[in-house]
């Protein structure tokens, strides 16, 4: 099982350039998330999606856009990259627990995309 796959793994951009990070999951999960991790900080939620065609803002959404055209894919876009967006980006997915507890439906993470913006 591939689980959650992120592409690319590394990328260097110049300020002002645009790019799209791709996340794909093969677990048929309803929910998908984008986080960023910066040195000395925990992961912070950028955007999330609760189903195909839906997206919502997380804690730090400014400067990013997302799309979920297919259930298995969640794209994160940077329209005009800034040095402050240099970070490691993680995608995650999870099931809805139904009648159960969220504590039993942990998020599954990809291996991250390391993005440097010069």
């Amino acid at each position, binding site marked *: 099982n591939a689980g959650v796959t992120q592409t690319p793994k590394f990328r260097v951009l110049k300020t002002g350039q645009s790019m799209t990070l791709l996340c794909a999951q093969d677990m048929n999960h309803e929910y998908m998330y984008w986080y960023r991790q910066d040195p000395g900080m925990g992961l912070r939620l950028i955007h999330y999606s609760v189903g195909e065609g839906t997206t919502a803002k997380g804690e730090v959404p400014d400067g990013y856009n997302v799309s979920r055209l297919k259930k298995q894919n969640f794209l994160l876009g940077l329209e005009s990259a800034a040095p402050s967006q240099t970070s490691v980006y993680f995608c995650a997915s999870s099931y809805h627990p139904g009648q159960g507890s969220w504590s039993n439906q942990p998020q599954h*993470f990809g291996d991250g995309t390391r993005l440097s913006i010069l």
Partner: protein
Amino acid sequence: DQQVKQNSPSLSVQEGRISILNCDYTNSMFDYFLWYKKYPAEGPTFLISISSIKDKNEDGRFTVFLNKSAKHLSLHIVPSQPGDSAVYFCAAPLSGGYNKLIFGAGTRLAVHP
């Protein structure tokens, strides 16, 4: 205010001994907590969780304790092994549902022979 704090950036433990990783939180309404483990160049992987209606959850060598009055949880690893060397994050749900998570800054555990 929703915060999850891991005040120890690093911890060094001898193989075979107990590792205790700590986490404090500010929101008494959190109804579950999770611990994730992260190796370099990999994504976080789920380790263990605890519901707020419990004060202890155990899975093999890993036990999480929850003290709601102190707003504190801890992860105990017994016995510690070199393969446990990683960064450990505690996490709790952000308000608004949908399993959104807020993470602590992480504690880097080094288990040495």
